[in-house]
């Protein structure tokens, strides 16, 4: 019964790993793996010698880092606030609305954002009417671009990210709250001394696991929002690999960048899983 899955995984996951040898070659598609000449670590030296290449790694770290922090705090606050709602139907309707963006692709959302963030779009109109601001060139200015990327990612995922916190909140023993009531604790004191400590293990799990993703800035999102004006501050490793490798045809160099990312990512994920196991007793299967 395992056979189909084993074969497919071998073909589409393990064979490409073998293909990584081209990171050490001056790969020419018409010569193939066997005949292309070996150049050792030249691609890697090139990666770290060009300032714009190193900039790509920094961009990735900055964008992914901000997303990680926002993506941990926003769902947590949302879950805590939603947990205070006593009316079930109200709670359910709020959940229905905030989970929705998670299921839409960045092509759809990118299309909507491009429309809304244009200089004459809805958001600039709103800012102009309410605060009298000049139109902001959101998608043509590097700094604004980063802000848009991080904010829209948090906007898309905060609701769905809260599910796991809501599940943990539902698992807290009500007797703890009853005891605190008897002792005269206010709701704020209860949250601080019961709810937050109960959530710490799951926060550690979510936090450490997303740390393993620190080299993923979110290809789909950036690819659907960016343009040449913001390459300097918005280009991440994945978009860079795509552009340099498939568009410019530098297969070997691009594969080297990809390999660098895979290795660092692998080490980070393994550390993250170990940490999650150690501090919060989390296992994947």
């Amino acid at each position, binding site marked *: 019964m395992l056979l189909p899955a084993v074969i497919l995984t071998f073909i589409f996951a393990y064979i490409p790993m073998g293909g990584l040898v081209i990171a050490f070659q001056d790969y020419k598609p018409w010569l193939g793996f066997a005949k292309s000449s070996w150049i050792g670590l030249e691609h890697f030296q090139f990666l770290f010698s060009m300032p714009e290449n190193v900039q790509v790694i920094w961009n990735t770290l900055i964008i992914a880092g901000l997303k990680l922090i926002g993506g941990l705090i926003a769902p947590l606050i949302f879950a805590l606030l939603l947990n205070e709602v006593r009316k079930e139907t109200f709670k359910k309707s709020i959940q229905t609305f905030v989970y929705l963006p998670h299921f839409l692709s960045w092509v759809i959302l990118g299309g909507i954002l491009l429309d809304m963030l244009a200089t004459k779009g809805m958001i600039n109109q709103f800012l102009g009417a309410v605060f009298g601001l000049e139109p902001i060139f959101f998608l043509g200015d590097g700094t604004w671009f980063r802000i848009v990327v991080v904010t829209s990612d948090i906007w898309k995922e905060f609701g769905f990210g809260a599910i796991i916190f809501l599940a943990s909140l539902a698992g807290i023993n009500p007797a703890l709250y009853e005891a605190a009531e008897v002792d005269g604790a206010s709701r704020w004191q209860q949250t601080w001394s019961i709810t937050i400590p109960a959530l710490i293990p799951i926060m550690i799990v979510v936090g450490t696991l997303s740390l393993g993703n620190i080299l993923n800035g979110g290809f789909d999102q950036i690819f659907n929002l960016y343009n040449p004006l913001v390459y300097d501050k918005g280009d991440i490793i994945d978009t860079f690999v795509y552009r340099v490798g498939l568009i410019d045809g530098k297969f070997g160099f691009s594969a080297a960048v990809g390999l660098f990312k895979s290795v660092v990512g692998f080490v980070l994920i393994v550390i993250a899983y170990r940490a999650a196991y150690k501090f919060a007793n989390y296992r*994947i299967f």
Partner: protein
Amino acid sequence: MYHKTKPYKVFTVFNYTFLILLSLLCIIPLIHILAVSFSGKAAANANLVGLFPVEFTLDAYEKTLANENFLRSLWIAVQRTVLGTILSMVIVTLAAYPLSRENRSFKRRNIYTWYFVFTMLFSGGLIPFYILIQKLNLLNTMWVLILPGAVSVWNMILLLNFFRNVPKELEEAAFIDGAGYFRTLISVFLPVSMPAIATLSLFSMVGHWNAWFDGLIFLTDHEKYPLATFLQTIIVQQDFSKVSVRPEDLENISQRTIKAAQIFIGMAPILVVYPLLQRFFVKGIVLGAVKE
């Protein structure tokens, strides 16, 4: 009782207001795009449309649905979603069942599990993957959209965790009645795992419907683009060279209301399955992901 204290009542009012604002924030962009799609061309170009259509018309939808390229990509997306979901669910279910068994009855279980999990942690990356697809002659086929993602390790883990919670007695009873492994999987495990199967199928459907990047790089024949890839080139890249349009149609494609209509049709199936999905997924995800 904190419920009756004054500060808590004030907090509750603020909390409800804040949560309502948050949920509005999540759907206002969708309402806006819907309003644009039903608005007249002039009103949309003059940026007069907010949350309600101005000069209501169905013109944009008529033109979109008269566009052959759009309809073809829509049909390809439907085919891809149906075929891809069925294939993936069959393969994942077949693999999850043996992997859910105890170490005693399936000794190499851990080796196989790590064989799959390792692919989640490390990958060859885009370039070697692209070269592989090229060498396999899969460019421009439906298979390239379906096969590489068919083994979803994430779904497999969720399902195997679900299978583990099936009572042992059920399985033993089936064996005693003379059922083999296949029979047991089909007659015992599948019926009791319907919530999990439904959740994962719906996730898989949403994934296939939304996927656009594989189409963009592996289909050089633009007539084979599924809807998501088609929309990506038209709306995001604004690249009309790939859709073989006649010059007189160009204005129709780049028009803002038509783009809005295309975006809306592109997300409509998700808006339809989403309410069905929501009933199951909290249970499905949490059961698989959080363990005591």
